[in-house]
Structures are given as structure tokens and as C-alpha cells.
């Protein structure tokens, strides 16, 4: 047993935390939220230069990490700062899809921050079911619809899942390809996404299918759990500071026992969340992966709601304002439950896997 990060991961964590503390304060982040692009190209380049994208890939793939704990370290820090740049969809999902397909030229450009991709998998009506794919590939052309595709307008290419006969495969599509229509919109918790309609769009098969897709979603689930954990740490820290400084009735509100006990409960649940992320990262790619991921995502969903709501409540009105840090952080935490399966989805999956 060893619960310490390796030296390399510790350095990555320290460097990334420092960079985001310096470069990604509330004011700048809120400007990014209101920008038309929905992300900041300078931040993206900065993250690439720090090696943050490279940390999501194995050495064989041209990176220097790629394991569950590398992913967890990166996304916990991104979550702590409420980063909206598309590290999860572009860096991890599309990037690791390219790596699995052996497209090392594109991986290199992506790690260098020069290439943007979107990952278009979930479909309208699918909710969180990863196997609900009705987009079809026929004669090298894709037809179908994809839902809430993150930062799709900024991408040069899309990785699209589709069925050819019974087989699910991944396909590469140029964003400006004929027959590809994008309805782009902002997201409540920052960043942009779009509805994608494909009507006979020319595509290149990537030569990978359902098992790679399942691996990608497993990695993304670890990343999403870690991101939510980082955001919860910020929410809890802000709440602690507020309880110690905000005065009502002549004393800091943290002096009221009713709030002290609720703060304690948040800290207890935060440790549960931290362990759930460690479980998820540690079992990624192992025999107990699926049950562990569902257990973790369910717990993060439950604790996330508690932390977001209690942090807002204990702050009072100030936390309801857009310009205060917690507003964005709380939205990130709750919206984490709306990707890769919510609390109930993973509860059912855990039950099904337990019974199997």
C-alpha cells in the first residue's frame, strides 16, 4: 500500500496547480465564460506547453503518463480551478481514440496543442447509454445525429461513433465536410457544445470499435470524477473561509454549531469522494474496473449534489451571483452528474454488475 503520488505526478500536480492559480483566476475565467469561443486558446497552448495534454498519453503513444492516476491528477487540478477548456473531450477522448488507432501524427499535433478535435458519441434519446448508437456508416458515409458535442465548433475534426452493420466503429470526419451541420450553443456551466447532424458525410474509418470506445468512456469517467472532486475541494475551501469571515449577529457564522456540524459533514463526504476517485483511478483497466467506476460515479453524484447545495446554502445570497467563484464551481459539480452516466444510471449499473 502506498497512497503517495509518484515524484513525476507530484511535480505535474504542483506545476499545474501553480499555473492555474496564477493564470486562471475568477476574473479571467469569467471573461472566458462570456467569450464567443467559450475557451481561451492561450490557456490551451499554456497547458500543452506544461505537458498537461501529454500526461494523458502513455510513452508508447508519445506522452509520459496515460494511467488512471495521471488522468486523475490532471483533472482534479482542472476541476479545482473550474477550467472549461476541452481537455476531457479533445485531449482525452478524441486524443486517446487517435492513439488507439495508431494516428501518431495527429496525436503529436494534439499533444502540442495545435490540433483540436471533438468527440461525437452520445445521441439524442440515448441519455447515458453508451451502446445506443443509431448513426450509421454506409459506403464510407455517415448519417445520424449526435447530442451535446463539446466544443465542436472549435474542432478541426470530429471522432464519430457509428454502426456499420452490427459493429460499432469510430470514424474521423473533417468539421467542414459536406453534409455536416452543427447547431452551436453555450453551456450552463461554461464552454460550448453543439448538436451535430450528419447526412451522408464522407469519413475515414479509424479501425477501432466497441472495445476501444468502452475503454475511452472508462477513462473519461475517471476524469469526470476527478474533475468533480477538484471542484468540490474548492467549494469546501471557499465555504470554510466564508464561515470564518462572514459575520452575522455579531460573530462569524462559523461560530454557530448548526453550521459547524454541516461543515464537518461536507469534510467527511469529501474524503469519501477522494477515496472514490482513488478507487476509480486505481482500477482503471483492471478486472474490477466496471463495478468500481459505477460505484465511484454514483458516489460522486451524491456527494457532489450535497457539497454544491450546502456550499451555496451556507454562503447565502453571495453564492447565487455569477461573479462569485462558487457559482461557477457549483455548476461544474452538479453538471458533472450529467456526463457519462448520472447517479441513478450508475446505481443501476452497479446493481446489474453485482448480480452478474
Amino acid at each position, binding site marked *: 500500500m502506498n497512497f503517495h503520488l509518484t515524484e513525476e505526478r507530484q511535480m505535474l500536480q504542483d506545476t499545474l496547480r501553480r499555473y492555474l492559480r496564477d493564470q486562471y483566476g475568477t476574473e479571467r475565467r469569467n471573461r472566458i465564460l462570456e467569450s464567443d469561443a467559450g475557451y481561451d486558446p492561450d490557456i490551451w497552448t499554456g497547458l500543452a506547453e506544461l505537458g498537461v495534454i501529454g500526461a494523458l498519453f502513455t510513452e508508447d503513444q508519445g506522452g509520459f503518463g496515460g494511467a488512471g492516476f495521471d488522468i486523475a491528477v490532471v483533472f482534479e487540478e482542472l476541476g479545482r480551478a473550474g477550467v472549461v477548456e476541452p481537455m476531457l473531450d479533445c485531449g482525452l477522448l478524441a486524443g486517446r481514440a487517435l492513439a488507439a488507432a495508431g494516428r501518431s501524427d495527429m496525436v503529436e499535433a494534439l499533444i502540442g496543442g495545435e490540433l483540436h478535435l471533438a468527440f461525437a458519441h*452520445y445521441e*439524442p*434519446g440515448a*441519455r*447515458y*447509454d453508451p451502446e445506443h448508437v443509431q448513426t450509421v456508416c454506409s459506403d464510407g458515409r455517415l448519417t445520424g445525429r449526435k*447530442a*451535446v458535442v463539446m466544443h465542436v465548433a472549435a474542432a478541426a475534426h470530429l471522432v464519430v461513433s457509428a454502426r456499420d452493420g452490427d459493429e460499432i466503429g469510430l470514424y474521423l470526419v473533417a468539421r467542414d465536410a459536406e453534409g455536416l451541420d452543427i*447547431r452551436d*450553443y*453555450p*453551456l*450552463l*456551466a461554461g464552454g460550448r*457544445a453543439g*448538436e451535430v447532424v450528419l447526412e451522408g458525410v464522407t469519413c475515414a474509418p479509424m479501425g477501432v470499435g466497441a472495445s476501444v470506445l468502452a475503454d475511452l468512456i472508462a477513462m473519461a469517467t475517471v476524469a469526470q470524477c476527478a474533475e468533480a472532486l477538484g471542484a468540490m475541494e474548492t467549494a469546501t475551501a471557499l465555504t470554510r473561509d466564508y464561515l470564518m469571515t462572514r*459575520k*452575522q*449577529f455579531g460573530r462569524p457564522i462559523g461560530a*454557530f454549531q*448548526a*453550521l459547524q456540524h454541516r461543515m464537518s459533514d461536507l469534510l467527511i463526504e469529501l474524503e469519501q469522494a477522494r477515496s472514490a476517485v482513488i478507487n476509480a483511478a486505481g482500477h482503471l483497466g483492471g478486472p474490477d474496473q466496471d463495478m468500481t467506476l459505477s460505484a465511484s460515479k454514483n458516489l460522486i453524484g451524491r456527494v457532489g*449534489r450535497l457539497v454544491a*447545495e450546502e456550499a*451555496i*446554502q451556507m454562503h*447565502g*445570497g453571495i*453564492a*447565487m*451571483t*455569477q*461573479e462569485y467563484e462558487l*457559482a*461557477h464551481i*457549483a*455548476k461544474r459539480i*452538479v*453538471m458533472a452528474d*450529467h*456526463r457519462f452516466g*448520472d*447517479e*441513478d444510471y450508475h*446505481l*443501476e449499473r452497479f446493481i446489474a454488475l453485482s448480480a452478474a
Partner: protein
Amino acid sequence: MDLSYTPEEDAFRAEVQAFMAEELPADIAEKVRLGRDLTKANMDLWHAKLNARGWLAQNWPKEFGGAEWNAVQRHIFDEESNAANAPRIVPFGLSMLGPVLQKFGNKAQQDYWLPRILDGSDWWCQGYSEPGAGSDLASLKTKAVRDGDHYIVNGQKTWTTLGQHANMIFCLVRTDPDVKQQEGISFLLIDMDTPGVEVRPIILLDGCHEVNEVWFTDVRVPVENLVGEENKGWTYAKYLLTHERTGLGGVGSSRAGLETVKRLARAEVQNGNPLIQNPHFAARLAKVEIDLRAMATTNLRIVSQAAAGDAPGLEASMLKVKGSIIRQEINDLARRAVGPYAMPFASEALEGANDPVPDPLDAGPVAAQYFNNRKLSIFGGSNEIQRGIIAKTVLGGGR
């Protein structure tokens, strides 16, 4: 014990239903149903229709042009109004200031201001909370200093709901800094067009502009705009707050919210079946509906007490806490129901996209409402304050 309404009450309900069917414009009802923002013109129109029928000032005595409904009638109206997706009545002039002027204002103030509330000449907002004085309202710092026939007002108010539409604000101001906090407060009516008044928007976490900061710099307010006696404002404020607290169970709003959740959950498909049949989702939905049924009866018990003339005390606090928890749980279910489509922001930006396929984004801004309604347990005396009131009443003394 008899849970049924009287024939007179049933007839009244039918009358309200008929009014809603005839008078409520369909476009406004649709906005309310989908949780979209109403314009000032929308709200003014609805007030005018209610006023024409004599139903705008429901709790005012007839001598002031009110409907003088009892608590049961108001409750029935609230239920039918929510069921029809009617806009809520903007409460600041009608439910808050009106009763204060009727009880503590002088004849000239009553004659001048009350008709203007009814006919929409004035849009009032509430100047209570300050940046350092939220739940601890009595610590407010905005000061008013007498100068001949005027008060000079300096300070800042915050969380001023719909202040961007208002031309008048009723304020609590400190007129004596040297006495116990509660004893140096006065109740002033301030014209927002007076030089030195500045309104700045506060954008809430769901992106909407609902509340404001109001700044006062050397604002001259005529002394005839003082309500009641100088330094007695706290008494009037407390009177007003008891009016604000009734109806905070929000039964009608919760029922309408529950209908929204059911509509969404019937349309959503999970594993080949409607989400509403999913055992976990169905269990969540059933539990909150069970809570709501009980709370509706608690609400009616308090309503009938109030109709008999008993002022609700601790029960109002209980209702506010439970009502907000239930409403927020329903908001939580709505965001769960739409799955990944909880993530897009401001789907009205996409309205008019000419798409023959049913628009998955047309779920309404349910996640934005989930975040917006976190306010229910914060404003009007936070749930912590309400629990404190309950505990103090039952346990006495120490906090």
C-alpha cells in the same frame, strides 16, 4: 374533520378557472410553463387584467379597493393560478407595502399611493437587505439624516428583486445610530428617479437578471415620505415580513413543477422505456409527491387557522422550510429527467431553429431553474433563521 371544500368554495374555484381560461394570454402561460423570463409588459398586462376584475389586491380590505379574500380563497386562487401557468403577482406593492401603508401610513399616503399600486402607476421594489445585513437585517447601515423638509439618504441596498423595472423603492434606513439596532430604523418611500439613486444589475448564477444593487448618494427624500413614526420602522418591517412569509409553502408552484417533471419523464426514454417507469426515478418522484400531499394539507391547516383569524407563527416557519425543500427536490428531479440536455444554456437562443424533428433542447431551462431556486432556502429569512425561530419558540432562550 372534513377535507372537502364548501359549495361556496367550489363555486369560487370554478369562477377562478373560468377567469384563467378567458383572460390568461396563451403566450404568457407558455412562457411560465417553460420557465422563461417574463417581460415587464407581460407582468403589467396580467396585473391590469386582475385589477379590472377586482382580484389584484386579494388581501386588501374593500375600503382600499381590495378583494378582501380570506385565506382559503387566496389559497384556491394560488392553486388555480399555478395550474393555469399564470404569472405570479409581483408582491412588492401589493402584498408588502400595501398592508404596511394601510396599517401605519397616514391618510394622505393611503389616498395617494394605494390607487397607484392598483392601476400600475408605480412599480415598487423592496430596499431591505444590505451587503452586510442579510439574515441579520437589523444591522443595516444605510442612513438617513434629517435636513429641513428632507432626509438625506446614503448607503447601499442589495438583492433588490426586479428593481430594474421599479420607479419606487420602500427602504429601511438608520435614522438614529446611537440606540439599540432595532430602535433606530425608519421606513422611507423613495422615488428612484431622484438624483443620487443608481441601480446596478446582479447577474445570478443561472445567467438571469432578477436582482439588483441600489446605491444612494446624498439622495433627498421629502419628509412626507416617512411612513409612521421616525425610528419605528423595525415594527413595520416585522409586520411586512409576516406578510412575506405567508404562502411560502409554495404548494401551487410545487404542483406545477411536479407536472413538468412528469411531462419530461414521460417523453424521456431510458433502456427502451419511458423514464417515468424507471424504478429509481419513479421512486424519487413518488417520494416527493408523497411529501407534497402531506405538506399541502399542512398548508391548508394553516390556511384555515388564518381564515379563522389566527396569525400563523411558528407554522409559517415550518411551512417555509419544508416547502422550499420540496420545491428544490422537484427542481432536482427535472434536471435529472432531461439527462445530458441539462447542460445547454438558454435554449431560448435556439428558438425558431426550423427543425421538423422534436427539439431535444426544448426541455426548458430546467437546470437553470434548479440553480435559481436555491434562493428559496436563502431569501425571506433563510432556512437556518426559520429553524432558529422554531427552536427558540420550542426550547426557549439560547441559540
